[in-house]
């Protein structure tokens, strides 16, 4: 059997590893397609042939649900993530206001469009730092690009997911945004309408089980489902 | 076959308005640079859409602005030797030559014959870029001939060629004119070519036809000297009487013997010779002891004095009209007036090969 999975690009490393394990355990062949959540969601609404969608963005999942494109009751919040402030390797940690104050530039994903950017803007606003930060913010088209800017040293500070920070050896986490400063970061997953198969359900379930959870935890995600 | 052309066309600073007929044979369009010759030929070929007019060949309408008929060029079955060779740069000379033959119906014209006549055998594998000016023009001639057209348009085809080459190619046009029965529209500035090839001459000036008629008429009319004064001359018809051993051919022109260098025609054939007015000497008495072999007795028919020092004397001889261009001083000295009898002295060799044509 085969399953096609559309997943947010930020899940690539972790999900690839999990899929590898699953494929050795079962006879199911997994086809993983990574892209920005928005592109994937739009494609699903145009009939993309996928069984499962794992989004990095609640908004797009809500949109699909409203259009009736999800198999009811299969939607679950699979993973959580944290939002961090990063700097090139070797910088020391500090408190957010000082860091933001002193930074010459802050790399973020698009603050009005891409989830990581939206979370970041919310958090900085909540901390009353947005006014200070806004003129310094350089917005990349996705969170990985923002990460790259910091890794290359082009930006001395960046707002990214905890998982990204962990995966990039050339950056270091200099501060953690308090969870209350932004809405919870969730990765919802669901089966797609018309693709309600045994295999799909089984894989979705497996993702919530320990074997998978260990892998996601290792990459910095917070598994949200308790089995 | 007769080609009928009636055209009106307005270009910036130039108005074409012509109406003429080109009967079977070769019609020379004669006129100064810019007088509209190429424009007319383009219209006949269908490369230019005249503002108004009608062009037909023996009733087959090629173009008629009132009926809205306009046959595309490729269906007019013509061969066009352009003023600039227009060879296809991406094809070899050989491929250029055969281009039109592919579309020809009958394919009687053989490549080797044409290649030989034009002396382009060594060039067949070359591209046009590697040819000299005259070589290009020769290939263009060959290409048009090999297309087996039903009508030939030639725009100064020999202008870039040396005399010797012209002498080789001219008989071919003659054969086309006489054997293939194609109407040929031919543009040239060379009086010798007009004289030798033309059946009909259409004289153009500023986009208008100022004179048209049979070559013999137009060329022997001293009031029209299309080729400039130097081109005036008369045409005589004569029958080949004998080919002598010393290389001369004797002609009989209404009882008068004319000698000229051996011509290819057989005994009994009627041929046309041209006697240029500038090469005739007049004598009241029959002159003796001259190197000139041809002496024609006649009566002065008219004397036209031009603006310059010269006059054209028109002489009626048993063989036909002869024109002589002499100075007014000579005319006076000889006491030439209308009705007086007189002899025309013509050197044999001044009836040159170019001036001999088949009637």
């Amino acid at each position, binding site marked *: 059997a085969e399953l096609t999975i559309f997943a947010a690009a930020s899940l690539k490393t972790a999900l690839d590893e999990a899929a590898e394990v699953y494929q050795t355990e079962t006879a199911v062949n997994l*086809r993983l*397609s990574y*892209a920005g959540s928005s592109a994937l969601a739009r494609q699903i609404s145009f*009939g993309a042939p996928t069984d499962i969608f794992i989004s990095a963005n609640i908004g797009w999942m809500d949109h699909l649900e409203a259009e009736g494109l999800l198999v009811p009751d299969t939607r679950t919040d699979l993973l959580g993530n944290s939002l961090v402030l990063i700097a090139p390797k070797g910088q020391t940690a500090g408190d957010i206001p000082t860091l933001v104050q002193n930074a010459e530039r802050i790399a973020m994903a698009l603050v009005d469009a891409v989830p990581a950017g939206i979370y970041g803007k919310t958090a900085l606003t909540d901390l009353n730092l947005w006014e200070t930060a806004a003129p310094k913010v350089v917005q990349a088209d996705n969170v*990985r690009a923002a990460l790259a800017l910091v890794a290359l040293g082009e930006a001395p500070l960046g707002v990214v997911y905890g998982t990204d920070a962990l995966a990039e050896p050339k950056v270091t986490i200099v501060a953690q945004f308090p969870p209350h400063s932004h809405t919870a970061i969730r990765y919802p997953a669901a089966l797609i309408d018309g693709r309600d198969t045994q295999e799909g359900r089984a894989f979705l379930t497996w993702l919530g089980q320990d074997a998978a959870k260990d892998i996601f935890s290792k990459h910095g995600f917070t598994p949200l489902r308790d089995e | 076959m007769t080609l009928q052309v009636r055209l009106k066309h307005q270009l910036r600073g130039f108005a074409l308005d012509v109406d003429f007929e080109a009967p079977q044979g070769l019609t020379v369009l004669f006129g100064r640079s810019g007088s509209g010759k190429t424009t007319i030929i383009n219209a006949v*070929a269908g490369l230019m859409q005249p503002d108004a007019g009608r062009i037909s060949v023996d009733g087959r309408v090629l173009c008629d602005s009132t009926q809205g008929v306009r046959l*595309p060029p*490729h269906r007019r079955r013509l061969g066009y030797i352009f003023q600039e060779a227009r060879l296809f740069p991406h094809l070899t000379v050989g491929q250029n030559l055969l281009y*039109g033959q592919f579309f020809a119906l009958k394919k009687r014209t053989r490549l080797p014959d044409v290649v030989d006549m034009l002396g382009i055998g060594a060039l067949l594998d070359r*591209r046009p870029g590697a040819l000299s000016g005259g070589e290009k023009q020769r290939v263009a001639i060959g290409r048009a001939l090999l297309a087996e057209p039903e009508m030939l348009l030639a725009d100064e085809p020999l202008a870039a060629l040396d005399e010797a080459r012209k002498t080789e190619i001219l008989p071919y046009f003659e054969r086309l004119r006489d054997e293939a029965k194609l109407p040929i529209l031919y543009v040239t500035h060379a009086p010798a070519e007009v004289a030798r090839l033309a059946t009909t001459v259409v004289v153009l000036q500023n986009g208008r036809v100022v004179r048209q008629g049979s070559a013999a008429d137009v060329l022997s009319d001293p009031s029209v000297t299309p080729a400039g004064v130097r081109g005036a001359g008369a045409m005589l018809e004569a029958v080949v009487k004998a080919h002598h051993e010393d290389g001369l051919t004797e002609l009989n022109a209404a009882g008068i013997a004319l000698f000229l260098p051996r011509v290819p025609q057989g005994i009994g054939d009627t041929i046309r010779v041209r006697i240029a007015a500038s090469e005739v000497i007049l004598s009241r008495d029959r002159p003796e002891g001259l190197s000139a072999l041809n002496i024609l007795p006649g009566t002065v028919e008219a004397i036209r004095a031009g603006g310059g020092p010269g006059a054209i004397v028109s002489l009626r001889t048993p063989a036909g009209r002869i024109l002589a261009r002499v100075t007014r001083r000579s005319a006076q000295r000889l006491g030439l007036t209308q009705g007086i009898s007189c002899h025309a002295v013509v050197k044999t060799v001044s009836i040159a090969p170019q001036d001999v044509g088949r009637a």
Partner: protein
Amino acid sequence: MTDWLTPQEWQAVALSLRVAVWATLAALPLGLLTAFALARWQFPGKQIVNGLVHLPLILPPVVTGYLLLLTFGTRAPLGSFLAELGIVFAFRWTGAALAAGIMAFPLMVRAMRLSIEAVDPKLEQAAATLGASRTWVFATVTLPLILPGILAGSVLAFAKAMGEFGATITFVSNIPGQTQTLPSAIYAFLQVPGGEGSALRLVLVSVGVAMGALLLSEWLARRVARRVS
């Protein structure tokens, strides 16, 4: 050699080649027709056609991809109509070729159009007087003379098709073995921190293939040019 790339990467290389070749081949006749029409014909709406041809160049590729989804998606009228005929573009490699072809189209048409405009109509006239119909004139005179332009246009198109990403990933997604082209694979690697190395390998493959095509075309163009002058 083979283990230099993973099987999945090989798949991407093969797919990109297939997509680029098909995109180029399919665009060729239409591109030639369009170029010819724009260069030679007068017709109402000519400037609109001209504009439409250039559209993919002006629009951000994502928008083009989105418009393609709107038009050829399985839910779209045209897409579902075509699907009934068995022609499916969305989320197939054929869709990738369609997207690449459309993105490459303006480049191809412009190059061809320039060449057509450079052909001396006097040569075409000469061919016509020799008995060649319009079609024959085109095939035996115009076409050989514009070959350099066709080649140039095709190479641009091929290169563009090899590199096309935005419209492709938006229209057909990034499904390994089905629609994951080289640029999509490169993109995926760039999404992974530390994936630059892998991305670089694929970039090199991509550049190598396109350069090969380029050199081949230059060589062909030189041969053609030698023939023509």
